[in-house]
């Protein structure tokens, strides 16, 4: 501290910058500012509680008329849909063919078929929806599937998850682990490990 050079040091540049930035804050408070912050800090400590709770990130996508969520750590790539090459002598309902994703040949599965949600009316979507090819899996066990629309990643706390209704058909609920509240919709949250195992079994 005693051997500080007054000029041209990064420290003095930073001080000049912070002084300039500090002057930006020398403006009057907007109307209602104090009251609004007073209400914020008077309220219960919600933010802190949410930060402590383990948050989960999911990828939200649509298959036909169904919005689904998949744990984000399972998703390795989301890319443009591309031509799939059918596999000869393999007339499987679940395997649609192979796709080339940056030189890697991946099996393209019919996820809707696997989940038993095939044949539903596509939901009328506002604006333009872009179909995507989603690559999921871990290490060398990767597969791709076609999604009619991908919303993106969504981070939620445990309070956004609700248990599945008990009246849900057992087969349809095979891979759904919970129902997630998202944007006023109920989104089926898929059980990642169970889904991958089922994919492996169907490819064997």
């Amino acid at each position, binding site marked *: 501290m005693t051997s500080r050079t007054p000029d041209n040091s990064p420290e003095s540049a930073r001080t000049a910058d*912070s002084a300039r930035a500090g002057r930006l*804050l020398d403006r009057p*408070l907007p109307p209602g500012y*104090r009251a609004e*912050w007073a209400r914020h800090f*008077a309220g219960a400590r919600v933010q802190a509680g949410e930060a402590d709770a383990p948050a989960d990130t999911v990828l939200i996508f649509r298959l036909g008329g169904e919005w689904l969520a998949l744990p984000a750590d399972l998703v390795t790539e989301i890319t443009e849909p591309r031509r799939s090459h059918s596999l000869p002598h393999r007339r499987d309902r679940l395997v649609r063919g192979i796709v080339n994703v940056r030189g890697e040949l991946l099996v393209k599965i019919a996820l809707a078929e696997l989940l038993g949600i095939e044949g539903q009316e596509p939901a009328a979507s506002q604006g333009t929806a872009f179909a995507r090819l989603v690559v999921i899996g871990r290490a060398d066990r990767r597969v791709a599937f076609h999604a009619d629309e991908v919303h993106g990643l969504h981070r939620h706390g445990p309070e956004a998850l609700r248990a599945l209704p008990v009246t849900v058909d057992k087969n349809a609920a095979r891979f759904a682990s919970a129902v997630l509240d998202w944007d006023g919709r109920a989104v089926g949250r898929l059980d990642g490990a169970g889904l991958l195992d089922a994919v492996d079994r169907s490819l064997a």
Partner: protein
Amino acid sequence: MLFLMFRIGKDRYVLDAAQIEQVLPLVEAKELPGAPAGIVGVISYHGEPVPLIDLGLLATGRPVAEVMSSRIILVRYPGAEGEHRLALCAEQVIETLKREPGDFVATGVEAGLPDYLGPVAADADGFIQWIRAPALLSDELRALLFRLPGAAA
């Protein structure tokens, strides 16, 4: 050692960052009519009433300017019966400062000055004075503010 820097009037002061719980924006305070000088009211910190001291008013008799850079510093305050919180509002609460405690030297004019004024450290722009947060309140004020609910009745 990390300090939080702020201004009272045109001079710079620092508080030990370890004593600070949070820096809040200038929230609205409930006024306390007839409160001693410097105490402008109580703010609600997640439901807990925290006395708010205007450092400008306390030190120079001029309340802090109502601008974005004026903020409230929430300090933890050691009391006879556990820790309390105390909210201090000051101007230009926008910078932290890293200095060694040894950089601060006594001003030499300690006598007759308020207890909360500590030693000073020099830099290119002048002196920075260390504020001792626990000494901001006199004993009677401390008893008044942090009286146990049972004892107050």
